[in-house]
Each structure stands twice: as C-alpha cells, then as structure tokens.
C-alpha cells in the first residue's frame, strides 16, 4: 500500500515535472521543474529499495547540479534570452517554436519507438524475480563493492572529477583581459 502510493506520487511528480519542463517557456522554470523530476526519481529509487542512490540523487542534483544550472542561467542572460538570430529571423524563439517542437517530438518518438522495438525482446528475455525481496540497506554492500569490485572505478572517478574541476575552472575563470579592461 505505502509503496504503491509512494510509487504513484513519485511517478506523477517525475513525469508531471518533466512534461512541465518541456512546455515551460522560461528557462528558470525549466530548471525548477528539473528539480521536481529529480526528486521524483529519488522517490522511485526508494521504491526500488535503493536508499543510498536515492539520497545521492537528492544530494548531487538538488544541492549541486540544479544550483549550478541556476547560476549558469543567470550568467548567460537569465530569462532575457538574447539571440541575434532571433532578431534576424524573428521566428526562432530561444525556447523553441512549434516547428522545432514538432520536429523534435516526431524524431524522439521515432527513436524511442525503434528503441522499444529493439529492447522488447531483451526485456522479455530477462528473468524477473517474482518473490519480494526484504529491504536491506544497500549502504554497506555499496561500500564493500566500491572497495573491491569497483575500486578502480572508484579511484578513477576521483581523477575524472579532478579533471572536470580543473577543466571547468580553466574555462569558466574570469578573463584576465576583462579585469584589465574594467
């Protein structure tokens, strides 16, 4: 009962916010709907018994990525989205127009359909365990897996993040010339 309610709520939140994200005309609102979607997905993780992943999702996305996105939106002109092309042609609003949406919708639909056809058989081939698994916290298992089977990935991810940090810091660093100009 509880799981079902949680699932339904989370699924509704996820899909609803995703759709809202799609149709929102304001990029700031899109970001906030992304937040809702991500929290919904965290809820879905909970219904799958993945407590650690759920909380990680919340921590990284809510605390990190969404805030970063909001900052980035502010830095790139915020809501007032200026585009030279827009002025030129006057028919391509930044958030897409009905044609771009139409094309995108059809393309994605075809793609998803083809993927559906492709994986349909694989899904059938997967043996689904029917019996209910008792909920056991995954923290310890994840910790041990990270230290044994996936230790390389664990270590490498730190290197990846270091690379991302350095790379992004170099790219985003305020320009020296700009300082001089001001």
């Amino acid at each position, binding site marked *: 009962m509880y799981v079902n309610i949680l699932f339904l709520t989370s699924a509704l939140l996820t899909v609803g916010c995703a759709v809202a994200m799609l149709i929102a005309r304001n990029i*700031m*609102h899109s970001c*906030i709907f992304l937040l809702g979607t991500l929290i919904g997905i965290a809820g879905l993780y909970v219904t799958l018994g993945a*407590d650690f992943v759920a*909380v990680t999702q919340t921590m990284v996305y*809510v605390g990190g990525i969404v805030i970063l996105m909001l900052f980035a939106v502010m830095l790139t002109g915020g809501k007032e989205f200026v585009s030279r092309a827009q002025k030129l042609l006057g028919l391509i609003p930044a958030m897409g127009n009905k044609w771009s949406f139409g094309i995108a919708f059809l393309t994605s639909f075809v793609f998803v359909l083809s993927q559906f056809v492709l994986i349909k058989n694989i899904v059938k081939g997967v043996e689904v365990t029917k019996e209910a698994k008792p909920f056991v916290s995954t*923290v310890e298992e994840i910790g041990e897996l990270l230290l044994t089977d996936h230790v390389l990935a664990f270590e490498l991810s730190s290197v990846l993040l270091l690379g991302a940090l350095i790379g992004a810091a170099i790219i985003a660093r305020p320009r020296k010339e700009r300082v001089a100009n001001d």
Partner: protein
Amino acid sequence: MNTTIAEYFLSFDVFRSFVSRISLWLGTDVTPFIVFMIFLLGALVITLVLATVGGFGTYAERKISADIQARIGPNRVGPYGLFQLIADGIKMVSKEDIAPKTADLFLFYLAPFLAIFGVFSTFAVIPFGSGITLTDLNVGVFYLVAISSLVGVGVFLGGYASNSKWSMLGGMRGASQIISYEIPVTLSILAMVLLSGGMSFGQIVGSQGAFPHQWFLFHNPFSFIAFFVLFTGALAETNRAPFDLPEAESELVSGYHTEYTGMRFGLFALAEYVEVFVVSGVAVSLFLGGYNVPGEEFGHSLAGQGAQATVFFLKTCALYYVVIWIRWTFPRLRVDQLMVICWKYLTPIAIFNLVGCAVWLVVFDGKSMFELFFHH
C-alpha cells in the same frame, strides 16, 4: 537495524497485545494502520514541538540579545514577554501579502516552500531518543545533509524571483555561501561516520556514551577539531551571524527576503530558526553524545525515553544559546573573508580531520583517547 518509532512501541508486549486485540475485534490486521497512525502522530507532535521551538527561537534571540546588551527585551505580552511569539504569529498571518509586480510569481511563491520543505523533511531522522526517532534510516546523516540543501535553492530562488537588486544580491550570496559551507560540514560528518561505522543516527549516537569522555568530541584530537569545523559551517549554512551576509540588514536591507511580506516571510523566518535548532541537534548527536543517558535498561523504558529526550533538548538548547551568543558577540564577515574561511581554512582542516580520523581508526583500532590512557 532500522528502528522506527513504531517498532519501538510495538516492542512493548502491552501494546502488541492491544493491537492484536483490536485486530481480532475488527477481523483484520490493523498493524499497518496503527503503524501509520503512530508515524502520523509522531510526525505531528515533532512538527508542533519544533515549530514552537522555532517560534521560541525568536523570543530567545531577543531575550538573550537584550541580556547581552544589558537590556530587558520583550516584556509586555504575557509574563516576561513569553507570548510575544503568539503575537508575532498573529501579526504574520494578518499582514497583507504583496508581491512585486516585476517578480517571477511562480518562483516567488515556490521559494519559501522549498525552504520549509528542506527543513521540515529533516525532522524525520532527528534522534530525540533511542525510541523517539521517527525513523532511523541507514543513510540518516546523509539524508539530512542532502535534503537540507534544498534550503539553498529556496534562498536563491527567493532572491531571484523578487527581481529586486537587494534580494538578488542576498540570494546569490546565500546560495553560494550555503553550498560552500556544505563541504566542510559534510567532510566533518564523514569523519564521524568513519568513527562510528555507519550513517544512521542510531549507530552514531549508539557508539557514544552518556559521559563526556565517551563523546566523539573527545574521541581523538581530530574529532575535537572537527566539531568546531562543523559548528562554524553550520552557522554559515543557517545564515547565522557572523555569517549572515545573505540577509545582512545593514548592507542588503534584508537580503533575499526583502520583498517578502506576511506569511511568506514568516515561513522563511520559521524555516531559518528551526534549521538552527536542527543543526544544533545534529551537532549534539554527532559529537556531544546525543540522547545518551546512563544505564542500558533504563534507556529503553518510557521514563528513559523521557530522560533521553530531555538530555537531548538540554544539550541542543545549550548549543542554541551558544549560537545566539556568537551572533551578538562577533562582527559580520566580509564576503571575501567568508569564502577564504570556507575554502582556505575550514575545508583543508576538515580534510585533515578526515584523514586523521581514518589513520587513528586504523592505528589505534578505533579506541578513543581515554580508552588508550586509562584502559589498563
């Protein structure tokens, strides 16, 4: 392992037989319903208590500041001005709700919700006693850190949506300050997770004891430092002085909630005051022995739970007092100092503590300083 308040109640034979009798009487198993009711009641009670505490926070703040400044403080409404809080509440509710005309209304209305949501969701894991914890998640501390980062989004949106320059500056500062100080706080918490061997509050509090020498605060030199890192970080995360730059009233009017009025402002303020209490509670649970009272058997009984909750509240309130004390003692930082303190002092120190705790754990096999000195 995962114990909830419902499991605590169901561990009493009396209660279990009571439930089974009702089940027999109704002809169906009512345990899930009872569990739900316990959760609901517990949640309501805790919300009520903490909201009141948060309300009293404003009162305490004014009273203590008055004390420090040798004034009297609120003294008109009720005895010693105790009902000031109710008066404030009524004032909040009955004020007109104004939104700036250029504001982004959707986000303007959403922002206080995110703040409230982020703070209130953390109540679910705060350990008031070994039984009086709504739920003792295995990812407890982690969950608390994660969900409270919503407040940062709320603050940012509050600043953004108002479309006022003061708000914008405050929101920016608030968001970047909150996320920055999350790092040393998380790393300090990580050190305690390391020492206790689990992320659940039950585990962390359970591996401490009632007496100060069993607390993680005095477990080793690193954890001693880690407490101060955490406490400083917590002050900044809750925008308390001397880190109250986002709402620095002398420079930014009122920061991110400049444009908020009435109940919306009230909710922001409530979230803020309650959050201070929550982080004090977390600091108490992580470092100051939490709800621990002497005696194993005693702790499980109902009276023991009362004692535990009392101990917890006392410690937390003491810490709350320190927070207010600090506010009225230290001057506010500049924004560059704020960043320097976070990234150049607190974070390296926190990493150092983490490494120190890990090495200590391996070298001394998890024994605390006192065990090493006196256990022979």
